[in-house]
Protein backbone atom coordinates (compact mmCIF):
# COMPACT_ATOMS: atom_id res chain seq x y z
CA UNK A 1 0.00 0.00 0.00
CA UNK A 2 1.24 3.44 -0.83
CA UNK A 3 2.69 5.38 2.00
CA UNK A 4 0.89 8.61 2.49
CA UNK A 5 3.60 10.95 3.61
CA UNK A 6 2.36 13.85 1.64
CA UNK A 7 1.43 15.93 4.65
CA UNK A 8 4.84 15.83 6.26
CA UNK A 9 7.34 15.01 3.53
CA UNK A 10 6.94 17.75 0.99
CA UNK A 11 9.95 19.79 0.08
CA UNK A 12 9.92 22.37 2.83
CA UNK A 13 12.80 24.53 1.79
CA UNK A 14 11.40 27.70 0.33
CA UNK A 15 12.29 28.83 -3.17
CA UNK A 16 14.09 31.77 -1.67
CA UNK A 17 16.22 29.54 0.51
CA UNK A 18 16.87 27.21 -2.41
CA UNK A 19 18.23 30.15 -4.38
CA UNK A 20 20.44 31.12 -1.45
CA UNK A 21 21.75 27.55 -1.21
CA UNK A 22 22.60 27.50 -4.89
CA UNK A 23 24.27 30.87 -4.65
CA UNK A 24 26.53 29.71 -1.83
CA UNK A 25 27.25 26.49 -3.72
CA UNK A 26 28.48 28.49 -6.69
CA UNK A 27 30.65 30.69 -4.48
CA UNK A 28 32.29 27.62 -2.98
CA UNK A 29 32.57 25.74 -6.26
CA UNK A 30 30.24 22.93 -5.22
CA UNK A 31 29.15 20.42 -7.86
CA UNK A 32 25.72 19.70 -6.51
CA UNK A 33 22.98 20.37 -3.98
CA UNK A 34 20.20 17.84 -3.49
CA UNK A 35 17.09 17.95 -1.37
CA UNK A 36 15.95 14.58 -0.04
CA UNK A 37 13.99 12.96 2.73
CA UNK A 38 16.24 11.71 5.49
CA UNK A 39 15.42 9.83 8.66
CA UNK A 40 14.56 12.97 10.54
CA UNK A 41 12.87 14.79 7.70
CA UNK A 42 14.15 16.81 4.82
CA UNK A 43 17.89 17.24 4.49
CA UNK A 44 20.20 18.81 1.99
CA UNK A 45 23.08 16.85 0.46
CA UNK A 46 26.16 18.70 -0.71
CA UNK A 47 28.11 17.10 -3.57
CA UNK A 48 31.74 18.13 -3.31
CA UNK A 49 33.94 19.00 -6.23
CA UNK A 50 37.49 17.68 -6.37
CA UNK A 51 39.88 19.27 -3.90
CA UNK A 52 37.31 20.72 -1.52
CA UNK A 53 37.46 19.95 2.18
CA UNK A 54 34.27 18.34 3.44
CA UNK A 55 34.38 19.82 6.93
CA UNK A 56 35.09 23.35 5.75
CA UNK A 57 32.32 23.24 3.22
CA UNK A 58 29.86 21.82 5.75
CA UNK A 59 30.70 24.54 8.24
CA UNK A 60 30.18 27.23 5.64
CA UNK A 61 26.71 25.94 4.90
CA UNK A 62 25.77 25.32 8.51
CA UNK A 63 26.78 28.79 9.57
CA UNK A 64 24.60 30.37 6.95
CA UNK A 65 21.70 27.88 7.23
CA UNK A 66 21.61 26.73 10.87
CA UNK A 67 18.07 25.35 10.52
CA UNK A 68 18.95 22.89 7.72
CA UNK A 69 20.43 19.40 8.19
CA UNK A 70 23.32 18.81 5.79
CA UNK A 71 24.96 15.62 4.53
CA UNK A 72 28.14 15.52 2.46
CA UNK A 73 29.16 13.30 -0.40
CA UNK A 74 31.82 13.27 -3.07
CA UNK A 75 31.16 12.68 -6.74
CA UNK A 76 33.52 10.00 -8.02
CA UNK A 77 32.36 9.98 -11.60
CA UNK A 78 29.54 11.38 -13.67
CA UNK A 79 28.50 10.88 -17.26
CA UNK A 80 25.79 11.30 -19.82
CA UNK A 81 24.49 7.94 -20.92
CA UNK A 82 24.73 7.79 -24.67
CA UNK A 83 26.18 4.64 -26.17
CA UNK A 84 29.17 5.21 -28.39
CA UNK A 85 29.48 1.59 -29.43
CA UNK A 86 27.37 -1.45 -28.95
CA UNK A 87 27.58 -2.61 -25.39
CA UNK A 88 28.87 -6.05 -26.19
Amino acid at each position, binding site marked *: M*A*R*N*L*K*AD*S*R*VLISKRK*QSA*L*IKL*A*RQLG*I*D*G*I*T*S*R*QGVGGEE*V*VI*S*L*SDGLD*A*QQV*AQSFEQKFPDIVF*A*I*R*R*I*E*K*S*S*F*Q*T*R*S*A*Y*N*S
Partner: protein
Amino acid sequence: MIELELKAAKGIRNDVISLLRQKPAGFTSATAFQSGRLGALLESNALSNSVSVGLSATKGEMFCIELRVYQKPALELAKNLAKAIDSQIEVNEVDDSPVVIRRAQRGKMFLTDLKLNRFPEELRPLRKHKRPLFIGQGIGNLTTGGLGAVSVGGFVTLDNKLGALSVSHGLIGLGKKTGKIGNKVAQPHPQDTSFSELGHVFGELLFASSLQPEQDAHCDAAIVEVENPEQVLGNVIPSRKFDDHVANCLSKTGMPDGYFDMPISDSEDEDFLSRGNVEAGRVFKIGAGSGWSAGEFVGQGLLTTLYDQGVPYRFTGLVEVRGESEEKMFSCAGDSGALAFYQREKQLFALGLVIGQQSILTINRKTGKDGASAIYSLVCPLNSIKEHLAANGHISNWHDN
Protein backbone atom coordinates in the same frame (compact mmCIF):
# COMPACT_ATOMS: atom_id res chain seq x y z
CA MET B 1 21.39 -24.56 -35.00
CA ILE B 2 24.97 -24.57 -36.17
CA GLU B 3 27.92 -24.60 -33.87
CA LEU B 4 31.16 -23.38 -35.26
CA GLU B 5 34.49 -21.98 -34.20
CA LEU B 6 35.29 -18.32 -33.81
CA LYS B 7 37.14 -17.91 -37.07
CA ALA B 8 34.37 -19.53 -39.09
CA ALA B 9 31.71 -17.55 -37.24
CA LYS B 10 33.44 -14.29 -38.10
CA GLY B 11 33.55 -15.31 -41.74
CA ILE B 12 29.86 -16.11 -41.83
CA ARG B 13 28.95 -12.87 -40.12
CA ASN B 14 30.88 -10.94 -42.76
CA ASP B 15 29.04 -12.87 -45.46
CA VAL B 16 25.70 -12.05 -43.90
CA ILE B 17 26.57 -8.38 -43.65
CA SER B 18 27.74 -8.35 -47.22
CA LEU B 19 24.43 -9.80 -48.34
CA LEU B 20 22.42 -7.22 -46.48
CA ARG B 21 24.46 -4.44 -48.03
CA GLN B 22 22.83 -5.47 -51.28
CA LYS B 23 19.37 -4.81 -49.80
CA PRO B 24 17.74 -8.04 -50.92
CA ALA B 25 14.45 -7.81 -52.74
CA GLY B 26 11.44 -7.98 -50.44
CA PHE B 27 13.19 -6.31 -47.54
CA THR B 28 11.87 -2.81 -47.21
CA SER B 29 13.72 -1.76 -44.12
CA ALA B 30 16.16 -4.45 -43.20
CA THR B 31 18.36 -3.53 -40.31
CA ALA B 32 21.29 -5.21 -38.69
CA PHE B 33 22.18 -5.28 -35.04
CA GLN B 34 25.35 -6.47 -33.52
CA SER B 35 24.53 -9.08 -30.98
CA GLY B 36 27.03 -10.13 -28.40
CA ARG B 37 30.71 -9.63 -29.03
CA LEU B 38 30.62 -11.29 -32.41
CA GLY B 39 27.12 -11.90 -33.57
CA ALA B 40 24.88 -10.16 -36.03
CA LEU B 41 21.15 -10.10 -35.76
CA LEU B 42 19.50 -9.07 -38.97
CA GLU B 43 15.90 -8.05 -39.16
CA SER B 44 13.61 -6.81 -41.81
CA ASN B 45 10.46 -4.86 -41.20
CA ALA B 46 9.59 -5.89 -37.68
CA LEU B 47 5.88 -5.69 -38.32
CA SER B 48 5.90 -7.73 -41.48
CA ASN B 49 8.35 -10.06 -39.74
CA SER B 50 9.99 -11.15 -42.92
CA VAL B 51 13.25 -12.55 -41.75
CA SER B 52 15.52 -12.77 -38.80
CA VAL B 53 19.04 -14.07 -39.03
CA GLY B 54 21.04 -14.34 -35.90
CA LEU B 55 24.63 -15.14 -35.17
CA SER B 56 25.39 -15.09 -31.51
CA ALA B 57 27.93 -16.25 -29.02
CA THR B 58 27.49 -19.28 -26.82
CA LYS B 59 29.79 -20.58 -24.13
CA GLY B 60 33.51 -20.48 -24.70
CA GLU B 61 34.66 -20.06 -28.25
CA MET B 62 31.70 -21.69 -29.88
CA PHE B 63 29.07 -19.72 -31.74
CA CYS B 64 25.66 -20.44 -33.12
CA ILE B 65 24.05 -19.28 -36.26
CA GLU B 66 20.33 -19.35 -36.41
CA LEU B 67 18.32 -18.51 -39.47
CA ARG B 68 14.61 -17.86 -39.27
CA VAL B 69 12.57 -17.14 -42.36
CA TYR B 70 8.98 -15.98 -42.19
CA GLN B 71 8.08 -15.15 -45.76
CA LYS B 72 8.95 -16.47 -49.14
CA PRO B 73 11.12 -13.51 -50.20
CA ALA B 74 13.40 -14.37 -47.34
CA LEU B 75 14.05 -17.78 -48.75
CA GLU B 76 15.96 -16.17 -51.57
CA LEU B 77 18.21 -14.63 -48.97
CA ALA B 78 18.61 -18.00 -47.35
CA LYS B 79 19.75 -19.50 -50.62
CA ASN B 80 22.11 -16.61 -51.26
CA LEU B 81 23.46 -16.97 -47.78
CA ALA B 82 24.12 -20.62 -48.36
CA LYS B 83 25.91 -19.79 -51.56
CA ALA B 84 27.90 -17.04 -49.95
CA ILE B 85 29.25 -19.28 -47.27
CA ASP B 86 30.65 -21.60 -49.84
CA SER B 87 27.76 -24.03 -50.00
CA GLN B 88 28.24 -25.22 -46.50
CA ILE B 89 24.54 -24.77 -45.95
CA GLU B 90 22.24 -26.39 -48.42
CA VAL B 91 18.65 -25.27 -48.83
CA ASN B 92 16.57 -28.35 -49.41
CA GLU B 93 13.08 -27.00 -49.38
CA VAL B 94 11.73 -23.56 -50.08
CA ASP B 95 7.99 -23.86 -49.89
CA ASP B 96 5.16 -23.26 -47.41
CA SER B 97 5.78 -25.86 -44.78
CA PRO B 98 8.53 -25.32 -42.27
CA VAL B 99 11.69 -25.44 -44.28
CA VAL B 100 14.77 -27.27 -43.20
CA ILE B 101 18.17 -26.24 -44.36
CA ARG B 102 20.42 -29.28 -44.22
CA ARG B 103 23.95 -28.90 -43.11
CA ALA B 104 27.22 -30.34 -44.07
CA GLN B 105 30.29 -30.97 -42.04
CA ARG B 106 33.37 -29.31 -43.29
CA GLY B 107 36.69 -28.94 -41.58
CA LYS B 108 36.17 -28.01 -37.97
CA MET B 109 32.65 -26.74 -38.44
CA PHE B 110 29.98 -28.84 -36.86
CA LEU B 111 26.68 -28.07 -38.42
CA THR B 112 23.26 -29.24 -37.41
CA ASP B 113 19.85 -28.73 -38.94
CA LEU B 114 18.52 -25.26 -39.49
CA LYS B 115 14.79 -24.90 -39.28
CA LEU B 116 13.01 -22.16 -41.12
CA ASN B 117 9.66 -21.46 -39.57
CA ARG B 118 6.83 -19.59 -41.12
CA PHE B 119 5.57 -16.77 -39.00
CA PRO B 120 1.95 -17.13 -37.79
CA GLU B 121 -0.30 -15.81 -40.52
CA GLU B 122 -2.48 -13.66 -38.28
CA LEU B 123 0.38 -11.44 -37.16
CA ARG B 124 1.57 -10.48 -40.61
CA PRO B 125 -0.76 -7.79 -42.00
CA LEU B 126 0.04 -4.97 -39.61
CA ARG B 127 0.25 -1.22 -39.93
CA LYS B 128 1.27 -0.86 -43.55
CA HIS B 129 4.53 -2.67 -43.05
CA LYS B 130 6.08 0.18 -41.14
CA ARG B 131 8.62 -0.64 -38.53
CA PRO B 132 7.02 -0.02 -35.14
CA LEU B 133 8.28 2.82 -33.04
CA PHE B 134 7.88 2.49 -29.31
CA ILE B 135 9.33 3.69 -26.06
CA GLY B 136 12.70 2.27 -25.17
CA GLN B 137 14.00 1.87 -28.71
CA GLY B 138 17.54 2.86 -29.61
CA ILE B 139 17.77 5.83 -31.97
CA GLY B 140 20.39 8.26 -33.15
CA ASN B 141 21.24 11.18 -35.39
CA LEU B 142 21.93 9.65 -38.78
CA THR B 143 23.16 12.86 -40.40
CA THR B 144 25.80 13.61 -37.82
CA GLY B 145 27.91 10.73 -36.64
CA GLY B 146 29.63 10.44 -33.31
CA LEU B 147 26.81 11.52 -31.02
CA GLY B 148 26.01 7.97 -29.96
CA ALA B 149 22.82 6.02 -29.50
CA VAL B 150 20.04 7.06 -27.14
CA SER B 151 16.53 5.86 -26.30
CA VAL B 152 13.01 6.92 -27.23
CA GLY B 153 11.40 8.21 -24.04
CA GLY B 154 7.83 8.79 -25.18
CA PHE B 155 5.64 10.46 -27.73
CA VAL B 156 4.29 13.96 -27.69
CA THR B 157 2.45 16.29 -29.97
CA LEU B 158 4.38 19.47 -30.57
CA ASP B 159 2.72 22.24 -32.50
CA ASN B 160 0.29 19.63 -33.86
CA LYS B 161 3.10 17.36 -35.07
CA LEU B 162 3.72 13.92 -33.64
CA GLY B 163 7.13 13.67 -32.10
CA ALA B 164 9.37 11.09 -30.45
CA LEU B 165 10.84 12.45 -27.24
CA SER B 166 14.47 11.87 -26.29
CA VAL B 167 17.49 13.84 -25.07
CA SER B 168 19.24 16.81 -26.60
CA HIS B 169 22.76 15.77 -25.64
CA GLY B 170 22.45 12.62 -27.73
CA LEU B 171 20.64 14.03 -30.75
CA ILE B 172 22.17 17.46 -31.26
CA GLY B 173 25.16 17.37 -28.94
CA LEU B 174 26.64 19.31 -26.07
CA GLY B 175 28.24 22.74 -26.11
CA LYS B 176 29.51 23.34 -29.60
CA LYS B 177 26.68 21.56 -31.31
CA THR B 178 27.46 19.03 -33.98
CA GLY B 179 23.89 18.26 -34.96
CA LYS B 180 21.27 20.51 -36.47
CA ILE B 181 17.52 20.87 -36.50
CA GLY B 182 16.29 18.93 -39.52
CA ASN B 183 18.89 16.16 -39.20
CA LYS B 184 17.63 12.68 -40.07
CA VAL B 185 17.09 10.39 -37.11
CA ALA B 186 17.15 6.62 -37.48
CA GLN B 187 16.26 3.59 -35.47
CA PRO B 188 18.28 1.72 -34.63
CA HIS B 189 21.20 4.09 -34.45
CA PRO B 190 24.08 3.24 -36.80
CA GLN B 191 26.19 2.57 -33.72
CA ASP B 192 23.97 -0.39 -33.13
CA THR B 193 24.22 -1.61 -36.68
CA SER B 194 27.06 -2.83 -38.74
CA PHE B 195 26.46 -0.27 -41.43
CA SER B 196 24.48 2.92 -41.55
CA GLU B 197 22.53 2.54 -44.77
CA LEU B 198 20.21 0.00 -43.22
CA GLY B 199 19.20 2.21 -40.33
CA HIS B 200 15.54 3.10 -40.78
CA VAL B 201 15.03 6.87 -40.90
CA PHE B 202 11.80 7.62 -39.07
CA GLY B 203 11.91 11.39 -38.84
CA GLU B 204 13.76 14.67 -38.57
CA LEU B 205 14.98 16.56 -35.53
CA LEU B 206 12.32 19.15 -34.75
CA PHE B 207 13.49 20.61 -31.45
CA ALA B 208 16.45 20.32 -29.10
CA SER B 209 17.17 22.24 -25.92
CA SER B 210 20.51 24.02 -25.75
CA LEU B 211 23.12 22.69 -23.33
CA GLN B 212 26.13 24.93 -22.80
CA PRO B 213 29.04 24.58 -20.37
CA GLU B 214 28.72 26.56 -17.15
CA GLN B 215 25.15 27.58 -17.93
CA ASP B 216 22.27 26.30 -15.86
CA ALA B 217 19.82 24.13 -17.75
CA HIS B 218 16.66 22.54 -16.46
CA CYS B 219 15.79 20.68 -19.63
CA ASP B 220 17.68 18.10 -21.66
CA ALA B 221 15.19 17.13 -24.33
CA ALA B 222 14.87 16.75 -28.07
CA ILE B 223 11.89 15.93 -30.24
CA VAL B 224 11.99 14.09 -33.54
CA GLU B 225 9.05 14.63 -35.86
CA VAL B 226 7.78 11.20 -36.85
CA GLU B 227 7.20 10.92 -40.61
CA ASN B 228 4.69 8.11 -40.41
CA PRO B 229 2.45 8.39 -37.34
CA GLU B 230 1.10 4.89 -38.00
CA GLN B 231 4.51 3.60 -36.89
CA VAL B 232 3.97 4.87 -33.37
CA LEU B 233 2.63 2.39 -30.87
CA GLY B 234 2.04 5.13 -28.31
CA ASN B 235 3.02 5.63 -24.71
CA VAL B 236 2.60 2.02 -23.68
CA ILE B 237 4.97 -0.66 -22.47
CA PRO B 238 5.89 -2.50 -25.70
CA SER B 239 4.17 -5.79 -26.15
CA ARG B 240 6.03 -9.04 -26.11
CA LYS B 241 4.56 -9.91 -29.51
CA PHE B 242 7.06 -7.64 -31.25
CA ASP B 243 10.08 -9.69 -31.98
CA ASP B 244 12.41 -6.81 -31.50
CA HIS B 245 15.54 -5.96 -29.66
CA VAL B 246 13.78 -3.96 -26.95
CA ALA B 247 11.00 -6.44 -26.37
CA ASN B 248 13.58 -9.17 -26.04
CA CYS B 249 15.61 -6.98 -23.76
CA LEU B 250 12.59 -6.35 -21.55
CA SER B 251 11.79 -9.99 -21.15
CA LYS B 252 15.43 -10.78 -20.38
CA THR B 253 15.77 -8.06 -17.80
CA GLY B 254 12.97 -9.34 -15.67
CA MET B 255 10.04 -7.08 -16.39
CA PRO B 256 7.01 -8.58 -14.68
CA ASP B 257 4.45 -9.97 -17.12
CA GLY B 258 1.71 -7.69 -15.89
CA TYR B 259 3.39 -4.59 -17.32
CA PHE B 260 3.30 -5.51 -21.00
CA ASP B 261 0.88 -3.28 -22.94
CA MET B 262 0.23 -1.01 -19.95
CA PRO B 263 -0.26 2.64 -20.89
CA ILE B 264 1.88 5.31 -19.28
CA SER B 265 0.04 8.52 -18.53
CA ASP B 266 1.27 12.07 -18.51
CA SER B 267 3.11 13.18 -15.41
CA GLU B 268 1.01 14.58 -12.62
CA ASP B 269 1.50 17.97 -11.06
CA GLU B 270 4.59 18.84 -9.06
CA ASP B 271 3.38 16.80 -6.11
CA PHE B 272 4.63 13.65 -7.84
CA LEU B 273 8.06 14.59 -6.63
CA SER B 274 6.85 14.35 -3.09
CA ARG B 275 7.87 10.87 -2.12
CA GLY B 276 4.57 10.16 -0.50
CA ASN B 277 2.92 10.27 -3.89
CA VAL B 278 5.09 7.51 -5.32
CA GLU B 279 4.19 4.05 -4.17
CA ALA B 280 6.97 2.98 -1.83
CA GLY B 281 9.31 5.33 -3.71
CA ARG B 282 9.59 2.88 -6.60
CA VAL B 283 10.54 4.13 -10.04
CA PHE B 284 10.84 2.09 -13.26
CA LYS B 285 12.51 2.62 -16.59
CA ILE B 286 12.58 1.21 -20.12
CA GLY B 287 15.65 1.93 -22.21
CA ALA B 288 17.69 0.63 -25.11
CA GLY B 289 20.75 0.26 -22.90
CA SER B 290 19.51 -1.94 -20.10
CA GLY B 291 15.86 -2.61 -20.87
CA TRP B 292 13.57 -2.72 -17.85
CA SER B 293 14.85 -1.72 -14.45
CA ALA B 294 13.49 -0.64 -11.11
CA GLY B 295 14.90 1.83 -8.63
CA GLU B 296 14.10 4.11 -5.75
CA PHE B 297 13.34 7.81 -5.75
CA VAL B 298 16.10 9.49 -3.73
CA GLY B 299 15.65 13.23 -4.03
CA GLN B 300 15.65 16.21 -6.31
CA GLY B 301 18.75 18.16 -7.18
CA LEU B 302 18.68 21.91 -6.74
CA LEU B 303 21.96 21.93 -8.62
CA THR B 304 23.62 19.00 -10.41
CA THR B 305 26.81 18.92 -12.45
CA LEU B 306 27.49 16.37 -15.13
CA TYR B 307 30.86 16.23 -16.84
CA ASP B 308 31.49 15.43 -20.46
CA GLN B 309 35.19 15.06 -21.28
CA GLY B 310 36.02 17.22 -18.28
CA VAL B 311 33.62 20.01 -19.26
CA PRO B 312 30.91 20.74 -16.64
CA TYR B 313 27.24 21.01 -17.58
CA ARG B 314 24.99 22.24 -14.81
CA PHE B 315 21.34 21.36 -14.32
CA THR B 316 18.62 22.36 -11.93
CA GLY B 317 15.74 20.14 -10.85
CA LEU B 318 17.08 16.70 -11.83
CA VAL B 319 15.58 13.76 -9.95
CA GLU B 320 17.97 11.20 -8.45
CA VAL B 321 17.05 7.52 -8.68
CA ARG B 322 19.05 4.73 -7.06
CA GLY B 323 19.15 1.22 -8.56
CA GLU B 324 17.92 -1.76 -6.62
CA SER B 325 21.48 -2.75 -5.73
CA GLU B 326 25.08 -2.09 -6.76
CA GLU B 327 24.76 -4.86 -9.31
CA LYS B 328 21.40 -3.66 -10.59
CA MET B 329 21.95 -0.12 -11.73
CA PHE B 330 18.92 1.87 -12.78
CA SER B 331 20.47 2.86 -16.12
CA CYS B 332 23.56 2.44 -18.27
CA ALA B 333 25.06 3.69 -21.53
CA GLY B 334 22.38 3.86 -24.22
CA ASP B 335 19.63 4.62 -21.71
CA SER B 336 19.81 8.39 -22.15
CA GLY B 337 16.32 9.45 -23.17
CA ALA B 338 14.71 6.41 -21.57
CA LEU B 339 11.42 7.06 -19.84
CA ALA B 340 11.40 6.81 -16.06
CA PHE B 341 7.95 6.28 -14.62
CA TYR B 342 6.18 5.21 -11.47
CA GLN B 343 3.07 3.32 -10.45
CA ARG B 344 0.18 4.63 -8.46
CA GLU B 345 -2.91 2.58 -7.84
CA LYS B 346 -2.39 0.30 -10.87
CA GLN B 347 -1.67 3.24 -13.15
CA LEU B 348 1.70 4.23 -14.58
CA PHE B 349 2.76 7.87 -14.73
CA ALA B 350 5.69 9.43 -16.56
CA LEU B 351 8.39 10.89 -14.34
CA GLY B 352 10.96 12.08 -16.88
CA LEU B 353 13.89 11.16 -19.11
CA VAL B 354 17.09 9.49 -17.92
CA ILE B 355 20.03 11.67 -18.93
CA GLY B 356 23.03 10.48 -16.95
CA GLN B 357 24.54 8.90 -13.91
CA GLN B 358 26.73 9.74 -10.95
CA SER B 359 28.70 7.46 -8.70
CA ILE B 360 29.09 8.98 -5.27
CA LEU B 361 30.81 8.37 -1.95
CA THR B 362 29.13 9.48 1.23
CA ILE B 363 31.39 11.25 3.70
CA ASN B 364 31.17 10.66 7.45
CA ARG B 365 30.59 14.04 9.04
CA LYS B 366 32.29 13.10 12.30
CA THR B 367 35.45 11.54 10.91
CA GLY B 368 35.61 13.20 7.51
CA LYS B 369 36.34 9.81 5.97
CA ASP B 370 34.71 8.23 2.97
CA GLY B 371 31.69 6.06 3.65
CA ALA B 372 29.38 3.98 1.51
CA SER B 373 29.30 4.31 -2.26
CA ALA B 374 26.23 4.43 -4.45
CA ILE B 375 25.28 5.03 -8.06
CA TYR B 376 22.47 7.42 -8.91
CA SER B 377 20.75 7.87 -12.23
CA LEU B 378 19.65 11.37 -13.09
CA VAL B 379 16.22 12.06 -14.54
CA CYS B 380 15.07 15.27 -16.18
CA PRO B 381 11.42 15.67 -15.09
CA LEU B 382 8.78 15.76 -17.80
CA ASN B 383 7.29 18.84 -16.19
CA SER B 384 10.57 20.72 -16.66
CA ILE B 385 10.59 19.69 -20.30
CA LYS B 386 7.04 20.94 -20.80
CA GLU B 387 7.88 24.22 -19.12
CA HIS B 388 10.93 24.67 -21.30
CA LEU B 389 8.96 23.96 -24.46
CA ALA B 390 6.27 26.43 -23.43
CA ALA B 391 8.87 29.08 -22.66
CA ASN B 392 10.18 28.62 -26.19
CA GLY B 393 6.76 29.06 -27.72
CA HIS B 394 5.94 25.41 -28.34
CA ILE B 395 2.64 23.83 -27.34
CA SER B 396 3.26 20.24 -26.31
CA ASN B 397 1.02 17.45 -25.13
CA TRP B 398 1.69 13.90 -24.04
CA HIS B 399 0.54 11.68 -26.90
CA ASP B 400 -2.87 10.26 -26.16
CA ASN B 401 -2.86 6.49 -26.42
